[in-house]
């Protein structure tokens, strides 16, 4: 089944992937922290989207599409335009390059993020692998 990014089906597919991928389970085994990915409208995406993921010890405990930011902020907030995030999903933009060139803004503990770059990169690998179609 085609899984189009962004969509509720895509988020569910990512949830399933994170809970079954053995490489991710190993590399993220010490990760403790939830995040919100904010997708700013651009191109075909007309409304801002908030994708919540609760990641814990190599698993995904919860996902949710939110209407706005929650009262209690998660450990990390990642923000990018749809144009840039779709380039990351298509493998056209390296996630570290996106962070270093302000195409992907990160708010949260930089110590934790820098300590866990391999986990972050493997999370992106999983997200790319479940994406079979992109909103154009």
């Amino acid at each position, binding site marked *: 089944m085609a899984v189009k990014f962004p969509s509720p089906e895509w988020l569910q597919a990512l949830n399933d992937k994170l809970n079954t991928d053995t490489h991710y389970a190993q590399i993220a085994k010490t990760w403790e922290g939830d995040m919100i990915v904010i997708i700013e409208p651009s191109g075909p995406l007309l409304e801002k989207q908030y994708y919540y993921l609760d990641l814990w010890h190599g698993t995904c405990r919860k996902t949710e599409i939110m209407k706005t930011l929650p009262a209690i902020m998660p450990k990390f907030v990642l923000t990018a335009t749809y144009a840039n995030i779709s380039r990351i999903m298509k493998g056209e933009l*390296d996630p*570290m*390059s*996106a*962070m*270093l*060139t*302000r195409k*992907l*803004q*990160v*708010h949260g*503990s*930089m*110590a*934790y993020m*820098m*300590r866990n*770059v*391999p986990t972050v990169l493997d999370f992106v690998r999983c997200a790319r692998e479940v994406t079979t179609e992109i909103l154009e």
Partner: protein
Amino acid sequence: MQPILKVNLSTRESSDFIIPAEWERDYLGGASLGARLLYSTLLKDLDPYGPEAPLLFLNGPLSGTSGPTVGRFVVCGKSPATNLWAESNCGGFWGPELRFCGYDGLWITGRAKEPIFLWLQDNLLEFRDANAVWGKDTYESQSIIKTELSISGTHVLTIGPAGENGIKFAGLYCDHGRSAGRTGLGAVAGAKNLKAIALKGTKKIPLAQPEIFGPIRSASNHFLKDDTITQVVHELGTAGVADYADYLGGTPKKYFHQGVFEGVDKVSGSAMAETILVGVSACHACVVACGRVVRLEDGQKRKGPEYETLIGFGPNLLNDDMPLIVRLGEICDREGMDTISASNVIGLAYHLFQKGVISENDIGFPLNWGDMSGVSRLLQLTARREGIGNILAEGSRQFGAHFGAEDEAVQVNGLEVPYHDPRGVSGMALVYATSPRGACHNKSDYFLVDWGQADTSLGLQFFERHAGAEKAANVALHQNWRSLCDALVLCLFGNVPAEMVAGLVNAACGYDYKVNDLLRIGERAWTLKRAINIRLGLTRENDNLPKALLEPLPDGPTAGYVPPIEEMLTAYYNSRGWDSESGKPTPSKLSELGMEWIINDIWNR
């Protein structure tokens, strides 16, 4: 720009030097203007320790304003370590204070009969006796001189015992531990009997269009504050990148001979933040605040190490004891020695000891990897040129040569290689091989581009970190931009868009430069420094890497890879318009840059 104050220490004469308008226009300031000002002086027979050798301190047109990361100054001259072009820039508040005195530079020649320090209060210059501070370390010297002058807000730049004793990697230090560490210009000051320069100014920084400058300054600082690298460096210091550098195999270990070190997780900006960090410190008007304040077991607050010091005295020596790294960095700062060169030459000593090239008879004690008990002693011996320290004080190239093992030294043209391994990030191979001051990571911090910080507004592209010749033109372009930053003496963490930098320069100077104009100014200065070095004897053969970096590592994320330096160099010369046989800028390139006036000098016409 404001005038430069020329001071002759031999005659105690001083005068104002007005910078020619066309030199300001073509070179802007900082190290680039320094190269233009010193072009006719820096010749082969000039002794860097002689009285005629210049020591030129310069600001840029943004220095001391409230723009983004504009608190730095540069010192230029001829390096006693490399006998080539020397420049080293430094943060803190001393550079802006010089501008507050009404000068954009200080151009020092001559040699004082006795140790002195200069005291410049606005435009009033005094030559003061420095016998009371001669022999004192940099922290004590700053403190004693400030007490003597008793004027609040005075900033003191000083050398330590290393500079007094002619250590080839002695630096100049201000605002506690801010350093102009590289290329040995502290030793040049020492040879002049110049212990320190104290400044206190009350004047305003000149701006051509303050009403335009203000809004751009404000916007650029806001932009910078929101940048991801700024957040990393603010929270974790420059060593915040250590984890990622190690992940990519860019962190040298065991003097560049090992790819994996078990204790590496204990040695990073993150580890510092999790253990001993108690505060941060900033240079003049800086929103980044990369400086670290740490507290050790004695309860005292100290300067925490930045990336180079952390890796140099950490994984480079197979050491994971963070408090010890803090203390070793402090010894270097107090004695007035560059931490990159000091940790590199000590790494070489360990390496040669393990190879059996040197022995306990040479050192006085064993140097076994992981045993750090002798390192602080080696640093002190070096600063005082005692015992083995007298050979260490000459730097890696000379230390290796003394024991018949020059090729084991990890240096380029006499300057020790910093801690960004080109086998992890191949762009650094070209950067080290072609830097105008010997192996340097600041003439282009291309490791960041290899990680992905490719600013497309400059025309930079992102190449895979192990790409070869195809990235040569990209490296040259990045060098041109960083050369422009050196003209402005802009900190490399001032990561604001090039258009904003152009806006700030234009508002400060009254120009109408576009980004491409700034890149051309950067290229012109890069080429001029190349011409200076050619006149000082540099040839195509000098553009190379040390043996260790051309051998594959046995393990780690970059095992088996070596950068294809010869192919990269050929592509690099072509992209620069340099002759690939001689490495000289071609006459047509020189003409294109408006530098016809040096064609005869470097082509012997």
